């Protein structure tokens, strides 16, 4: 299928997806009684007596579809509502919070994917040897360690034991003041990228220093899957006839593995990496919270706790769109890696 029509079709598909997702989430929030949803608007105990008025004002006791319709109508008029969780309009909240989340994802995903692919390949070529067992142990650790525990332990070691070495947050006090001064232009609000664009070494170093622990936490937790997937996919690929052909050609083992086996083994890994990126770009709640790297994930969690419905719905819209777009990119990337794959079709 032609690329353009394929993209258009996919984007059109997004509309029912978004409606479905928001209907579903709206339905869930409707399970809470109106009075409970009204407490979202309460910041002071004195307002307790205002709950009925709030219900009245925001129509919280109206039928499901009326309330959904009101929300949808607002959204269609470009108004996503007010996010109580972060005290700004929802439409501003996402661009405001995305840079932190993206910064984590930008560093974590390539690390996870590249190291995962590397270790997975090594594990496959050293099947049943110590190196394979070693990566398996790493995988088990990654799978079984709760990320809040890992994050805290890392922080206690690298921030507590080595006092102040790798601090939480996004920037140290001095650099934080610097980046908000007129001398520093915020192009993207992604600190590392802005530091490079401003040719500012100290900010870059400081930003990287703050990224190490959260990225490490995310990586250890998420790498296991990519690594094991790569290992099994690589083993499957190494067992194929064309590998024997490649060896019989006289190619060095390195070339056989890295050129002939790996490219085929990458195909399932691409899908998973895409979803991994979508997952991380829509927020890593625990890591963001522990390391005060507040982004989309923190916001979504906070919104859910507060029953901040406009935020929760906007988050759903954002995440669903992200997943559809990533899915599209993965599909296009597929055709680049595997010539057998056609857009909109399966492997021939």
């Amino acid at each position, binding site marked *: 299928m032609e690329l353009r029509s394929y993209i258009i079709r996919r984007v059109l598909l997004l509309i029912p997806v978004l409606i479905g997702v928001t209907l579903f989430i709206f339905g869930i929030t409707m399970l*809470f*009684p109106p*009075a*409970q*949803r*009204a*407490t*979202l608007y*309460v*910041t*002071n*105990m*004195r*307002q*307790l*007596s*205002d*709950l009925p*008025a709030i219900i009245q*004002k925001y129509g919280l006791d109206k039928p499901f579809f009326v309330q959904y319709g009101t929300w949808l109508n607002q959204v269609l008029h470009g108004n996503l509502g*007010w996010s*109580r*969780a*972060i*005290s*700004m*309009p929802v439409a501003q909240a996402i661009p*405001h919070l995305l840079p932190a989340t993206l910064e984590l994802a930008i560093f974590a995903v390539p690390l996870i994917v590249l190291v995962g692919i590397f270790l997975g390949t090594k594990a496959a070529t050293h099947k*049943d040897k110590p190196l394979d*067992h070693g990566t*398996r*142990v790493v995988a*088990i*650790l990654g799978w*079984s360690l709760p990320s809040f525990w890992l994050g*805290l*332990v890392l*922080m*206690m070691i690298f*921030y*507590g*034991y080595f*006092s*102040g070495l790798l*601090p*939480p*947050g*996004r920037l*140290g*006090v*001095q650099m*934080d*003041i610097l980046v*908000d001064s007129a001398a520093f232009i915020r192009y993207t609000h992604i600190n590392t990228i802005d530091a490079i664009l401003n040719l500012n070494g100290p900010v870059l170093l400081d930003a990287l220093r703050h990224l190490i622990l959260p990225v490490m936490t995310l990586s250890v937790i998420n790498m296991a899957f990519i690594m094991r997937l790569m290992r099994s996919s690589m083993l499957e690929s190494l067992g194929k006839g064309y590998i024997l052909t490649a060896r019989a050609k006289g190619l060095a083992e390195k070339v056989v593995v890295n050129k002939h086996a790996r490219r085929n083994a990458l195909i399932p890994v691409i899908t998973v990496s895409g979803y991994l990126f979508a997952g991380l770009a829509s927020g890593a709640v625990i890591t963001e*919270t*522990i*390391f*005060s790297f*507040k982004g989309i994930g923190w916001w979504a969690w*906070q919104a859910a706790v507060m029953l901040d419905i406009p935020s929760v719905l906007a988050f759903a819209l954002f995440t669903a769109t992200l997943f559809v777009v990533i899915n599209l990119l993965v599909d296009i990337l597929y055709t680049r890696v595997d010539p057998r794959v056609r857009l909109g079709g399966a492997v021939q």
Partner: protein
Amino acid sequence: MSKRVSKVGWIIMAALLCVSLAILPACGGGGAIPYKNPGVFVQQTIGRIDSLDPCYCYDTASGEQIYYMYEGLLGYNGTSTDTFVGLMATDYYWVNSTSLRFNIRPGVRFSNGDNMTVADVEYSFERAMVEDPDYGPVWMFYFPLLDTYGSRNSTGNITITSAEIDHAVEVVNSTCIEFNFVRPFPATTWYQIVCGSWGSIVDKAYCVAHGDWPGSWGNWTLYNNPAQTNLVLQSRAMGTGPWALDTWTPPGEIKLVKNDYYWNAGVHAVPFDRVLTQFVDSWPSRKLALLAGDCDIAYCPRTNIADLAGVADVNAVSGLPELTIDSFYFNQNITSTTTYAGSKTLDGNGISLDFFSDINVRKGFTYAFDWATYIAQAMQGEATQRGSPFVYGLPYFNPAANMYSKNLTLAKYYLEHSAWGNLTAIGFKFTLIYNTGNLVRKTACEILANNLFAISPNFQVAVLAKDWSSTMSLIRGRTWVMFQIGWLPDYADPDNYAVPYMHSQGTFSGPASFNNATVDALIAEGAISTNTTRRQEIYYALQQAWYDQLPGIILAQPLGRRFFTKYISGFEFNPTTCGQPGNLYYMSKSES
């Protein structure tokens, strides 16, 4: 094969766990705290800022920042809650019993360099009354000035006129402003009200330039009750305080920068070039930041105070009586849809809906509570028992007020002699609710439940956690049986406690159906009495009334604490000030 390897994995994991557990206690607390960021005050705390607009803000985290950036006519005098110093006003006097004049301090400038004039003062108060956002603090101006609780009735229609607002705050001349009260009002209470963050003086020119109410009466109603999105000062600030807003990046932090035009800087220099407040949710993170010198003060929850006990270089200030109190409230008229009252009849498997309307039942329950255990276990020793909601630190607090104490014999006596008969024989069953995660309240529930069970195994009280948002609506719905709630005052006047706790329409006493005509009359009189002797009589009487009527079990007044690094000095505790550090202007940071 894979089984063997996963066993190896588990062994390695266990080993890692052991190692990390061995390391962790050693983490932090070892070395000295380094001195970092000279000239910058860094605070790490919890919570979040909702709004920087003085007429909207009604929470302490936002209020704290407003205090740093704005100043009102008056401020509290040091640690006192009922004496004042002039800030934007140099002096003030009553012209007659309903007119109060403030002479405005000359030479004050906003952080953008604008001069502060009487027009700004008038605009600040009138703007608040014009905008009067829903559920906001402006009722505090409306009640004494116009004898109403706001600009709108319950259906949202405007019920006051521009002339009324205009008349309430008038410019007398270029140095003097006048408040006109609808009837004589207690002076101290008004001074306390204007000390609040809502009393901040804003820059009229700046507000108008950014699209705020222009100060004219032509179409002032358009500016009434703005949505938060439309608040001009929601995320901007322009005040005369020692610091000005640099950047606010919700939810992470807010950065303030020194106000170069601060009026008192000649006498007392602004001590910090920058003030940073960082909102960090996890306690280990805040603690490590304090120990690493990355922040100067860290909020420490009561359950974690042992973490910082005796740590070198940490300056702990404790025993600070906060103007708040936790209490159990008795619901004297439970809604019949409740699911917390067992069988809803007093048949041994529940309680009747009016169970607590009998004073002997309430007394029996009160005698069954154990304050000593509560203070030791739940409050880590950081609390003092009080006999009524009128806590220490408020004017007219009676230090000799009567208090109950644990006495299971008396408890049993009163429960055996209730209006409903001998309860030890009948028995009862109901559910106590606390909000999820609040371990202090959970402990209080358990103390009460256990002691009642000790009196008679027929007294069965279950304890249940509910999340905060649903507990709020439960109170309104009156389906709860007994509920614990705390109260943060708007200003340090006993009236601000009397109404929610004891008035028949109060925030808590209302839904609890506590209704006593004598009490209501006393409250109404105390609210507006200008005679301090009379007010003392009234509030002493109300404290005794609480002891006699027992609308609920008053638990304890918490004692707060602060943990600074040793480099910070000058902290003074004033319970009415928002935020942990309090009045930053008189604090300082230095290496020695």
